[in-house]
């Protein structure tokens, strides 16, 4: 084409946190607005990150805009620090934020970026939880147009969403929404709490930690501020129900590794077809293992 375009000389010399400072400032201002209007999907000019849209670029931009040299970061995906995507995101932050510590311990982290789970270990006021969001708008299941959804949110009009829940009950005798359960924040905006299981939704209610949700592809940031009401959408006579981990006998299943009976479990199928259950939160599992199990009982 033409020869006047030279390659950059400093290929590895990215600034702290990868993004330019103007971008980080914009994201921090958007965060402040999102906290001020709990549950409101605040639009922002999401930047392209060097990993795929849908791989946590919204969460990553929040993390990079917030992180400082004194922070300790934990990154999990499906509850695990060792999931490929969590490893990849953590590696990227280590690469671009050289002074930052990373950890696998929930209690040690000041900043936790997560996809699909809220850690089992209760969070504190000193912590910020960043959730990665593929679909920021709970109304998308009933209304494809973003412009019309915006009006519905403004008017607090969630009637079509409630109708969907009602029709579920008529058709299946159950609400069929499994994850991304619509949750009303501070009595007004209903949010998509990201694809966390229903099991995690109660953790949002009156959370001590600030919960920030970032949708990179859809260019939205929203927040559940500390000590804010978060109520899953239900009917008076149909209670909200979390995932059922009971055996046929009615007893609560335990994690086959650590023995915990109070955690979200991953179901695994072995080569011989047999099933086993393990904590999805790997740090919680390790913690319970250290507390509960004598060495002879440790399976993995």
């Amino acid at each position, binding site marked *: *084409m*033409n020869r006047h*375009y030279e390659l950059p000389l400093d290929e590895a010399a*990215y600034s702290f946190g*990868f993004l*330019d*400072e*103007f*971008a980080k400032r*914009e994201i921090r201002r958007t965060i402040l607005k999102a906290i001020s209007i709990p549950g409101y999907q605040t*639009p*922002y*000019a*999401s*930047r*392209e*990150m*060097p990993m*795929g*849209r*849908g791989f946590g*670029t919204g969460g990553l931009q929040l993390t990079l805009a917030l992180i400082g040299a004194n922070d*300790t970061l934990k990154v999990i*995906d*499906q509850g695990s*620090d*060792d999931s*490929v*995507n969590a*490893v*990849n995101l*953590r590696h990227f932050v*280590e690469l671009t934020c*050289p*002074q*930052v*510590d*990373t950890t*696998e311990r929930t209690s040690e982290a000041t900043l936790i970026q997560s996809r*699909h789970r809220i850690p089992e270990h209760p969070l504190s006021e000193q912590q910020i939880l960043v959730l990665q969001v*593929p679909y920021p708008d709970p109304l998308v299941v009933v209304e494809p147009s*973003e*412009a019309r959804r915006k009006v519905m949110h403004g008017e607090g009009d969630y009637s079509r969403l409630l109708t969907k829940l009602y029709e579920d009950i008529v058709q*299946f*005798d*159950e609400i069929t929404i*499994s*994850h*991304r359960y619509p949750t009303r924040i501070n009595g007004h905006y209903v949010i998509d709490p990201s*694809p966390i*299981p229903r*099991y995690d939704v109660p953790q949002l209610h009156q959370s001590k930690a600030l919960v920030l949700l970032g949708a990179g*592809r859809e*260019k*939205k940031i929203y927040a559940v501020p500390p000590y804010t009401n978060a109520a899953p959408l239900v009917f008076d006579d149909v209670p909200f129900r979390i*995932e*059922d981990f009971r055996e046929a006998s009615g007893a609560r299943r335990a994690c086959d590794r650590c023995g915990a009976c109070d955690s*979200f479990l*991953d179901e695994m199928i072995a080569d011989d077809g047999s099933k086993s259950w393990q904590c*999805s939160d790997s740090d919680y599992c390790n913690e319970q293992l250290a507390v509960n199990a004598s060495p002879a009982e440790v399976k993995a």
Partner: protein
Amino acid sequence: MGYVAIKGGGRAIRGAEAALEALRTAEGEAGTPLTLDAIENQLRLLTSRVVSEGGLYHPRLAALAIKQMQGDTLEAAFALRAYRSTKPRLLEAPLQNTGQMRLIRRISSAFKDIPGGQMLGPTSDYALRLMRLDLADESPAAFRKVSSQFMAGVSDSELPDTFPKVVDALRSEGLLPPLSLHHQHAFDITRDPLVFPVPRSAALATMARAETGSLLAIAYSNMRGYGDVHPTIAELRVGYLPVMLPHPVTGEPIEAGEVLVTECEVVAMYESGEQDGPTHFTLGYGACFGHNEVKAIAMAILDRALQKGMRDGPSNPSEDPEFVLLHVDGVDSMGFASHYKMPHYVTFQSDMDRLRTTQAKATEQQGVQA
């Protein structure tokens, strides 16, 4: 330096990187690494596509991205975009005059004769798509001879600097409305999110860096009958646009460089109630970095379709700004399609819980009925 936690996932990623690199170099000892010059020049249309979809005019980096991504246009454009995220915006460029382009090609399908003449230039439009088997084993000597002989006898002074724009002729004929004198502030899609309704400049900027195939598919739906733009190409031009920027000290416009662009202006029929004043033809505008004619034409058609949708409300997908503008970005769409490959264990566990509960209830009810 912080504490670093890496276990199995990290090893798997490093293994994948090594396997990918092994495939890139799989020719082994007989292989020659691709040079960036070869990609930029011999695969110029590929480079064009990547600078255009990447939204960053840097052919050299685009060539590197093509090499690194092993020819995947979506990934290469994506790499350019991510690179741009690290750069601040230094200034807002003033309006650039495409009448000043150093053209390599310009045609009009509206008039047989246009001021400056039809210039076919480098196009394969009328080439027979027969396989040129002689290229399969091309000798370097023959390769080098071609460009040295092309236009060997023509002196620079015989070449025109610029060509007048066809739409200017249409305007002076009164077929198109006069140019509006008040210019709206251009919407910068890299600094502001699209919140609908959006101005036309936001739509144009989004389409200028859209994925070619996505843009073409939606424009084609309009051409076939889900819409009725029925365009005539007033002018399609490809060439080097001098980029004029204010001098950092004096503020005087200076030529900072040039970018290869493709520009397309389509004329469409007038419609009732479209204008307040006298009736005119209407325009659709398309422009993008690089030499991408199909993209520029598709964009011009969609610009016209979207203007109609913005005015009257959409009656087809191609006239719906939200539908078009939120679904044509390659980085967004390919990222989201790819993300389904990531673990979804937790959400699937949750899905199974719902299905099993529903199944159990159904079985229970059947039991009651029986």
